[in-house]
């Protein structure tokens, strides 16, 4: 199976009350603070070589759910969100359905539920800005700082991603940066320095998460008959991760390894 770039605007324009999702997680503890309901949306333009959920790329895949249904599910779990948890929208790439998410986040806020957006920062327009206004915490995945490497890794550039970081910084609202550490792909020391240095003046970054690459997504690539380029890539060593953490920590606070 080959997934060329798709007309992703379709995702955003369809019925405002319907969201195309891949799956739901009801006790998410790894995508934002506390216990969260995580909505994995369907559809992504990035073609990350290490993608753990290649089945969430196709904009025609997944299932359609109503915003109402998602809100009522979140309400049933609200007690478990406690003081810091809430709802995270991850993916896929949430920004491809930004208009609908504005609606979702408004509904969640009406019920006092914290909102979190986990994004690779693909699209920046007025709708994105509106959505970010309603996003209590942005988890921004900056996959590589070097343009060429970023393209090799994801098939697209990081230009918009960095612009979104800049925009978020201008609003003063908090964000966490996420970085998937892949041996041979994202472990070059010079670029680790460059990546962290790029954000060193940012005031809105509250946490930086280094996420070690693992092979758990591999079987999905095989299931989908897609060519998986990282078959022989090992998981990073603790030493390499600690080193990356040390480099990031030269420029940024609160760096953690997931």
């Amino acid at each position: 199976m080959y997934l060329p770039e798709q007309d992703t605007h379709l995702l955003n324009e369809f019925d405002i009350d319907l969201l195309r999702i891949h799956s739901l997680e009801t006790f998410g503890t790894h995508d934002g603070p506390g216990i969260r309901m995580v909505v994995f949306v369907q559809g992504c333009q990035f073609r990350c070589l290490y993608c753990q959920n290649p089945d969430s790329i196709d904009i025609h895949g997944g299932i359609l759910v109503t915003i109402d249904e998602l809100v009522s599910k979140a309400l049933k779990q609200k007690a478990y969100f406690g003081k810091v948890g809430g709802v995270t929208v991850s993916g896929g790439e949430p920004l491809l359905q930004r208009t609908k998410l504005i609606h979702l986040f408004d509904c969640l806020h009406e019920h006092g539920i914290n909102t979190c957006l986990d994004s690779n920062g693909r699209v920046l327009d007025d709708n994105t800005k509106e959505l970010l206004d309603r996003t209590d915490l942005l988890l921004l995945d900056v996959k590589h700082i070097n343009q060429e490497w970023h393209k090799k890794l994801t098939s697209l550039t990081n230009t918009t991603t960095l612009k979104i970081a800049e925009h978020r910084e201008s609003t003063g609202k908090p964000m966490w940066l996420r970085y998937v550490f892949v041996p041979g792909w994202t472990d070059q020391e010079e670029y680790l320095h460059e990546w962290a240095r790029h954000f060193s003046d940012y005031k809105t970054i509250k946490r930086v998460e280094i996420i070690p690459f693992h092979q758990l997504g591999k079987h999905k690539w095989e299931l989908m008959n897609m060519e998986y380029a990282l078959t022989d890539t090992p998981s990073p060593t603790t030493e390499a991760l600690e080193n990356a953490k040390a480099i990031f920590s030269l420029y940024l606070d609160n760096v953690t390894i997931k």
Partner: protein
Amino acid sequence: MKNLVESMKLNVGVWKDSINVHDFILQNLKSYEGDASFLVGPSYKTIQLWDVCKESLLKERENDGCLAIDTKVISNITSFGPGYIQKENETIVGLQTDELLKRSMKPFGGIKLVESAVAEKGLKVSDRVVDIFNYAKNHNQAVFDAYDSEIKTFRSKHVLTGLPDNYARGRIIGDFRRVALYGIDRLIAEKKLDKVKVSDEMSDAKVRLREEIAEQIKALQDMKTMALSYGIDISKPATTAHEAVQFTYLGYLSAVKEQDGAAMSLGNVSSFLDVYIQNDIESGIIDEVLAQEYIDQFVMKLRLVRHLRPGAYDAIFGGDPTWVTEAIGGQLHDGRTKVTKTSFRFLQTLYNLGASPEPNLTILWSESLPQGFKDFCAQVSIDTSSLQYENDDLMRNNRGSDDYGIACCVSYQEIGKTIQHFGARANLPKALLLSLNGGREEAEGVQVVSGISEMDDEVLDYDTVMKSFGKTLAEVARVYAKSMYIIHYMHDKYYYERAQMALIDSNPNIDIAYGAAGISIIADSLSAIKYAKVTPVRNEYGLTTDFNIDGDFPKFGNDDDRVDTIAQEVTKIFIDELRKHKTYKNSTPTLSLLTITSNVMYGSNTGATPDGRKAAEAFAPGANPMHGRDVNGAIASLNSVSKLNYNDAQDGISYTFTMVPKSLGNNLEEQVANLTTTLDAYFGRNAHHLNVNVLNKETLLDAYNHPENYPQLTIRVSGYAVNFVRLSKAHQLEVISRTFHDTM
């Protein structure tokens, strides 16, 4: 008493003039709002002593789970001389027999069971003891003298199972704190006064009570004698922390020397002992190391309690449990927390001595508990999987007392004021099958219940089934109540718990604790009948052997009201039926949704059910959803269970919950925060009980294959904890097959 009050700077109150430990707690409790940072590791003596114990425990395991049996002595409070582990290192003394882990015979529950347990180990009960029972009667004999044929059929056809009719009922918690607070002489004097008050015109009840109090007084005298054999005088109140711990333990020890009830809880002693401990620390008599040593060594002793059990017993109560249940934490009605530094010290034993199923440490969870304590509990759960949690806000307000312990696994019991009579449990899926088979038992077609119409419907109709099931439940309740009346009448007569009862008010209120197994199968079965098309497959005798299910249906454990309300409804129908019947000593019916490990045995005795469960497949434990059917994640599963109404199941609603560590968060700090939030949320929805396991399936599989590497691996099952490697292989596999909430 006056000297004690002055030297300990105690606040006086009504506790001084009457037996009232609750008031003593109210006046003297030293609530602690801080964190765990003050705790210390084990003392040198504790380490030495525990090493000796660990060696013996290993030998016990290698010897098929039983180190030695005394086949000559009938065990009571005084029948064994003093026993020691290693005298020079023992701060708290007292063993059930004269040797570590040696088991003794307590045959008044049933001599037959004792004989078979002894025979299984290749030994023989001494001729003298056998001969005694040619003259003396025991509980088991007496019950069967009084049983009628109906009860026997219900019993042999596994509708009522695990009835305490051939073993001791247990569950009665003495207020062991009384030994330390008042001393035996004062307790005897009060009991004598109580006896005098039972006078004038006699009735059966009065005569019985006079005899009971006389037995209690003898037990108190025996306790004093037994303590003296260790060189300890418990006739007067304890005056130091060391004495308080030691006296309390000797009270408990008296009970387990004479009784081998299925579950013999300790109560809620930690915050009582804390008064003495903090007092001695403040006076400079002891330091934290010594304080911890007392608790470590006390808990060590509790871990070594053993009863003689036959192999068959393991099917109902797997892993050789004793349920030395200690309730820790909770709040007072006046808003103060019962958490003390000694609450922490009890939990610390799980680090100082390693993880352990006993004592069965139970956290009384309240939203208002100090955060430092909540966090430490969560950390201990994550590290040891040895704790269970119960809803203090719910029990305290619903049941009334703020001085209660947990009887057996999960059941509220006001300490020293009320007791409960253990009622084993009814097999609800079996009852459902009776109602689908015209009252005949599904395996052999024996008529168990009469007056149930044969059902020859092709497709089962919900209303028809509910009507028939309701009728069957009424019959089950009627026979169940009858059997309990007989059992408890005879247990009082032939195996009265005089040691525990001596430490309880003389005419306490009693709960009769009925039980029900298989609620999630019932909910799913009835849901299948209602929302899908269920066609019974019947054999040549017209008995159901299987069910064809066409279409999907809502399943318990997914936060779906359509099925969750069925579980609520059936629970209510059953307790309402039970409440219609007369009870022994006018006890109050309660109901538990709890199975211990008998869910495996119930399964193997029950045919296929309309939910798609095949014949002989295990039930889910307690009120758990069936394995693998709660597919909407942990919260949905918790929400379904929390909907079961405590008012209809005041004896307890047990949910055993297993999480993979990583699923709780990325690091310990996050995991602790997320677990405490989960507990707050779950209990905030009026849920009653939660067993928390935090472990990986791989660990259990490895322990299954290499038990020698996991001597202390502890897991929570239904309402208690076990050493995983001491479970039968069948039980181990059942535990491994349960839902592990990982990708939630």
